């Protein structure tokens, strides 16, 4: 069954949707969407390093993204530049350096479009193992740090005062973010991973009045986006990443009508 590329893509996408939902909620709540983008952009550099050193792609992306996150923290401490400028600096320079390095690696044939926007044909059986094992680990760790992370998202001082160690939770969360980027790059692509994290979550926000519901609906939204996106990618021969994100956008737009309804009900 897994010999069919489309089934592989589906299994990969479903795995990613399960992880992207809960992580995406925290990205939205903690206002980290541009931070996620920066990590994702740096992933391209990770891919080139993996190819030139013949190293595991997911592991290499994970390492580079983590390094970029560390550099960001250092720059925030040592410069007077605002965070969004630093994020832009890191995002675009790591993307640029990644593309320049690809230019030098003429002995390897790169599918740049595939790297940037995802490739439905690229998911191997080994990738499925990475996604499902890696994804389960990410969810397990997220469950372990859920309370301190969530409490400090609501109010840092409360969490710190009542003994929850919010700084540690934040650091672990950054690593989880790097990890999901590493496992989802093949299917969704460098430029659109953040969309996978935040668009189903944004849709879920429109439908939820409590955090558990929002996590639940963002997983549902992600699953629907993957299914609709991949089927239309197959049907219309479009790249997989943009197809999934477009499906997510349509779901988001539909969720706006639900808000209108509930406002009417209130009046």
């Amino acid at each position: 069954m897994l010999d069919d590329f489309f089934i592989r893509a589906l299994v990969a996408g479903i795995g990613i949707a399960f992880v992207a939902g809960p992580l995406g909620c925290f990205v939205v709540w903690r206002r980290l969407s541009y931070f996620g983008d920066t990590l994702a952009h740096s992933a391209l550099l990770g891919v080139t390093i993996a190819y030139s050193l013949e190293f595991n792609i997911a592991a290499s992306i994970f390492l580079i993204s983590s390094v970029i996150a560390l550099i960001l923290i250092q720059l925030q401490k040592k410069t007077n530049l605002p965070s969004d400028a630093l994020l832009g600096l890191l995002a675009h320079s790591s993307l640029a350096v990644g593309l320049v390095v690809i230019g030098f690696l003429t002995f390897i044939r790169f599918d740049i479009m595939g790297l940037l926007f995802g490739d439905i044909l690229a998911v191997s059986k080994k990738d499925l193992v990475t996604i499902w094992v890696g994804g389960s680990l990410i969810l397990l760790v997220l469950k372990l740090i859920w309370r301190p992370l969530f409490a400090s998202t609501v109010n840092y001082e409360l969490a710190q005062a009542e003994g929850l160690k919010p700084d540690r939770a934040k650091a672990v969360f950054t690593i989880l973010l790097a990890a999901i980027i590493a496992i989802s790059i093949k299917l969704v692509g460098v430029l659109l991973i953040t969309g996978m994290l935040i668009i189903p979550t944004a849709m879920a926000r429109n439908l939820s009045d409590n955090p558990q519901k929002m996590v639940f609906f963002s997983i549902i939204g992600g699953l629907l986006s993957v299914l609709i996106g991949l089927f239309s990618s197959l049907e219309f021969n479009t790249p997989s990443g943009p197809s999934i994100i477009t499906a997510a956008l349509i779901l988001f737009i539909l969720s706006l009508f639900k808000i209108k309804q509930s406002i009417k009900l209130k009046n």
Partner: protein
Amino acid sequence: MSTENNILVRLKDAGIKQNDKWLVKGVSLEINKGKIVTLIGPNGSGKSTTAKIALGIYKEFDGIVEKFTNKIGYVPQKISIDWTLPLRVADFMILTDNLASRDINEALKLTGVDHLIDKSLGNLSGGEFQRVLLARAISRKPDLLVLDEPVQGVDFSGEIALYQLIKKISEKLNCGILLISHDLHTVMSATDHVVCLNGHVCCSGSPIDVAKDKEYKALFGEQASQTLSIYEHKHDHIHPNDGDIKKD
């Protein structure tokens, strides 16, 4: 009176410096089980900062802070909840601890907001939100309660009721309370020990001692001192001095 194992938190010569300016300096105080310590002082005198030092919110500070409990309930002075996060009162109550729904309901009932449990936090009024904050802090039955202006925005009759509740909680749970307030009149009636701050400790002691203190009069004016005196007449017993504080 205070034996070693009754102490919950002890600050020795604690202070914090930001951009070469002392926010607060040389604060020594201790909070014991079942006792209420109140911090008073003008705006910017370092009351909230002192509370945050005691809570361990600052990573770098001067002096020594010894904490003998981890079961703490905190009502911050300012809290802004981001509305990208959908949060009901029920979700907020279990923010830092798993609680049985019976405990949650009981705490909300005590502060008079149990009917709001399914409401979104964003739809509460200032006073309602304050009552929820207090309920959340007491619901985990903490050893130490730190209350930074816990009744701000609460209506007048509610204010008195909440102060009575705070007093009752300290007796019932035998927990120590660090209270910050502007409302001298009400606060003093429930306090065991007062610390008057103005960037440093101006004076401290029992409410009666502090009211007589020259520095206190200079800071709050003659009238504030009289407020306390009036209170003193209403009172039917005398607070003993804790003994570890300098006297006039």
